[in-house]
């Protein structure tokens, strides 16, 4: 039996049938590497997935520092999203920063019975009095959708009454099948009410947005540092260390760089439709990944000086980290890894591991769709199901005034054909034959795969981290970087290599088995002699 069969075989037939579709033995499976993704988890199965609210408030909106974000619901949801997702944000002169605060309506039983709109209105009034924010977000939680509070009407009324921006997000936890639904809901509202409103002057024609970068551990800052060194102007970052003031101007850039495809491709596409700005899938994780990305961006802008500067910066940055990377590679070469995380990271980190001589033998996404696995060519073949139909999808028209093309249309089309822009190839094309790809890897499967594949490292989130470690396998969190970072770009690669090396070589691993478990220490005599 193959490894996959072995794992699956322990399930009941119904679970077997369902989970089988989520597993791929790369280039060895009958289904031509097709994978099931973005579908419901099975009740009772210990999934690591979160909810729609987590994707909306926790991931996409959370890092927007100058929006005061009121979570309308019982206290828990707001509490768990308070400072726990690790999107760093600097306090700047003239820009509000509410990242250290948690705001909730803390709904009580009477609010559920009689409706919570009154309390929400009052909460907004109090927030305005106390904090004088320029923007308020309202995020709804499960019971709010059920009792039918109209948070959008409340938001509209608040805009009028206080002369501020107030945006509501119907991101009740039960919507969709994972965090992914929440990303989409957040994207829609930011597109509707934020982007395109700014009139900041853009100084450089090499102006880019960074999309799908949440600044975990300062990743966004490291990426920005490199881009600026080359000569790019970063108009806005979605949404790490971001502000409404920046996001408003996103329509002025000439290219959108998409780091996390899953969480933000909706905005990337809509920006292109409305403003003519193409998007490029980038990856700033890994040395080679970063180099390739920088060259691709330069290719798009097609400017001799910029291209030359790109090479100078690459050469210089590599020079600065070469010794460190060589040292860490010597320590890590030949090790194997399994990665289960996010909706892009499981792909990105394989590049960085490859730089260090570590091969990835199992990878999967927590909330990815089929295009993150199989590439965007699969999009026409994805059938919408009831769960995806429930999430609003908006279409946009070109904006007559603000639409602009950096390159002539035929050149854009050429780049599209070359798959340099508006394309993401997905993870599987970068995975070796005989490796495994598993969607929504659950606890049981994690345990089984770890037992069978025995990777040296398991990259995951906090919920499964200690499961791996208790079984003697190093685990590093790739959602929070275990409070280290940045891991992006050139310097980030060294940080990552250092963290993995210290994890592998930590002396405590050698004490896991008590000595008396291996050698007999009891001495006795036989027959009283």
């Amino acid at each position, binding site marked *: 039996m193959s490894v996959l069969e072995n794992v699956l075989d322990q399930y*009941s037939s119904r679970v077997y049938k369902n989970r089988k579709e989520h597993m791929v033995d790369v280039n060895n499976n009958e289904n031509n590497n097709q994978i099931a993704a973005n579908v419901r988890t099975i009740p009772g199965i210990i999934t690591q997935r*979160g909810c729609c609210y987590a994707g909306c408030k926790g991931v996409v909106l959370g890092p927007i520092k100058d929006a005061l974000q009121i979570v309308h619901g019982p206290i828990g*949801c707001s509490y768990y999203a*308070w400072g726990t997702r690790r999107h760093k944000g600097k306090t700047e002169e003239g820009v509000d*920063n509410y990242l250290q605060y948690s705001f909730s309506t803390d709904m009580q039983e009477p609010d559920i019975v009689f409706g919570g709109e009154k309390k929400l209105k009052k909460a907004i009034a109090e927030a305005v009095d106390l904090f004088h924010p320029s923007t308020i977000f309202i995020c709804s939680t499960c019971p709010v959708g059920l009792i039918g509070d109209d948070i959008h009407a409340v938001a509209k009324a608040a805009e009028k009454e206080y002369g501020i921006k107030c945006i509501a997000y119907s991101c009740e936890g039960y919507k969709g099948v994972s965090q992914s639904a929440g990303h989409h809901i957040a994207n829609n509202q930011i597109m509707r009410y934020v982007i395109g409103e700014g009139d900041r002057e853009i100084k450089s024609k090499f102006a880019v947005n960074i999309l799908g970068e949440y600044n975990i551990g300062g990743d966004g800052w490291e990426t920005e540092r490199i881009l600026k060194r080359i000569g790019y102007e970063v108009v806005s970052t979605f949404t790490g260390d971001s502000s409404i003031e920046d996001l408003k101007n996103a329509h002025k850039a000439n290219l959108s760089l998409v780091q996390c495809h899953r969480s933000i491709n909706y905005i990337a596409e809509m920006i292109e439709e409305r403003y003519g700005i193409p998007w490029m899938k980038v990856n700033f994780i890994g040395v080679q990944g970063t180099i390739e990305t920088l060259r691709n961006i330069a290719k798009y802008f097609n400017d001799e000086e910029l291209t030359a500067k790109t090479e100078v910066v690459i050469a210089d940055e590599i020079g600065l980290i070469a010794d460190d990377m060589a040292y860490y590679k010597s320590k890590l070469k030949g090790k194997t890894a399994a990665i289960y995380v996010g909706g892009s990271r499981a792909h990105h980190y394989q590049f960085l591991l490859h730089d260090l001589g570590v091969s990835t033998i199992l990878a999967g996404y927590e909330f990815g769709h089929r295009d993150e696995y199989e590439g965007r060519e699969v999009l026409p073949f994805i059938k919408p199901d009831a769960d995806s139909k429930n999430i609003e999808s908006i279409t946009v028209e070109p904006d007559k005034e603000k639409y602009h093309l950096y390159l002539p249309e035929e050149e854009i089309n050429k780049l599209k054909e070359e798959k340099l822009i508006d394309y993401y190839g997905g993870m599987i094309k970068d995975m070796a034959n005989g490796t495994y790809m598993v969607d929504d890897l659950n606890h049981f499967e994690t345990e089984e795969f770890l037992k069978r594949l025995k990777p040296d490292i398991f990259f995951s989130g906090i919920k499964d981290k*200690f499961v791996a470690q208790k079984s003697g396998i190093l685990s590093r969190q790739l959602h929070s970087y275990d409070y280290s970072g940045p891991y992006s770009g050139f310097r980030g690669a060294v940080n990552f290599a250092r963290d993995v090396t210290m994890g592998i070589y930590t002396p405590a691993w050698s004490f896991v088995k008590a000595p008396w478990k291996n050698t007999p220490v009891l001495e006795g005599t036989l027959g009283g002699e």
Partner: protein
Amino acid sequence: MLDYTKKEKYDRTALRVNPAKTCQPVGAMYAALGVHECMPHSHGSQGCCAFHRMFLTRHFKDPAMASTSSFTEGASVFGGGSNLKTAAKNIFDIYNPKIIAVHTTCLSETIGDDLNAFIQDIDIPEGKYMVHTNTPSYKGSHITGFSNMVASFISYLSVSSGNKNGKAVLMPGFVNPGDMRELKRLATALGVSYTMLPDTSGVLDSPMTGKFEMYPKGGTTVEEIIALGNSELTLAFGKFASEAGAETLKKKCGVPYNLLPIPIGISRTDEYIIALQAFSKTEVPYDIEEERGQLVDILIDIHPYTYNKKVAIFGDPDTVLGITEFVLEMGMIPKYVLTGTPGDAFVSAAEALFTKFGVDGCIAKAGGDLYELHQWIKEDGIDLIIGGTHGKHIARAEDIPFIRAGFPIIDRYIHSYMPLVGYKGGMRLAEMITNALMDRQDRDALEEDFEMVM
């Protein structure tokens, strides 16, 4: 840091800012993890379960296993009965627990899922169990959820056979595994035979063995919970977390209870020791008296550094009251005492302590939040903050020493192994408090005042 917090008083009635509590289900999940071979199950959308597991894992740095009914929109409209049925089948099938402990979320509560009826309808395998508790997130706090789960275990399982088993029931309340171990150690030292419910020691502080165990050695067994009905007496620690469980056991099986405060500090530990002694009718062993004497000795030694120092304490009600009494025993002034969990009993208990020790001008509040605590601190400063991780922003903003005690502590390690209860716990707490204050004195000293001996 927290730049928008102003000291001016403002009466908020709708906006909660920086809460000092969270919702019921996480407490229920924690309690269920304290039962051996139990799978806590969250009946609602899967995000709740993910958040709660994340939070417990971050506090304990150990796996917190739990499953979910994975509601989608359909279940939210038509009810979660079939989700629970499927879940139960899969859980018994794949994870093979002895018992599934279901708690609700605000979603399943709002649609009015009748868990009792659902469970009646489920085919539970021979020798296995399934229990539930209601944990609406819009009522009480995580402490309420903990308390509800403990009570539900008893009302589902415990029976009285008519034969007393000579045991005491220890209901430790929402404390760390390290505390539970210490409570048990003292009971054993006093010759008391007991069952602890719940008991997360061994589960959330399990050893590294190189092998992951879904159900580690620790936890109260189902058999033990059933037999609770035959116990002689319950010692329930903390009104908020344990009274409901003790009351349920009394009503159902006639086991009387003695409601004790969580034994943090000298007199509260004394109370516990006396209760144990009354139960076992043995002499207090010298070892325990020695520990007590050591703690008193320590408090006298350190008094120049602690006396009249003002402190703010926040967190869970039973724990905060314990720390409050201990700092009063140390001669400190618990200037602000705050819990996020609602309940007037907290305020009256805190005020009784202020009166007992004759301190004036202290404020106690239940159902408060950290924004308000910060406002008080800005209004009239203090020397030390004691509470969970969320206090670190205030500590930094106001440059006040901060020690971590209670739940949650997600930015430090090892705390969950170390007790706050008992005389030993008192020594640890005294050490943390004194060192924090003395570190500050060193830091602030002029060079010529910087001492080798203190």
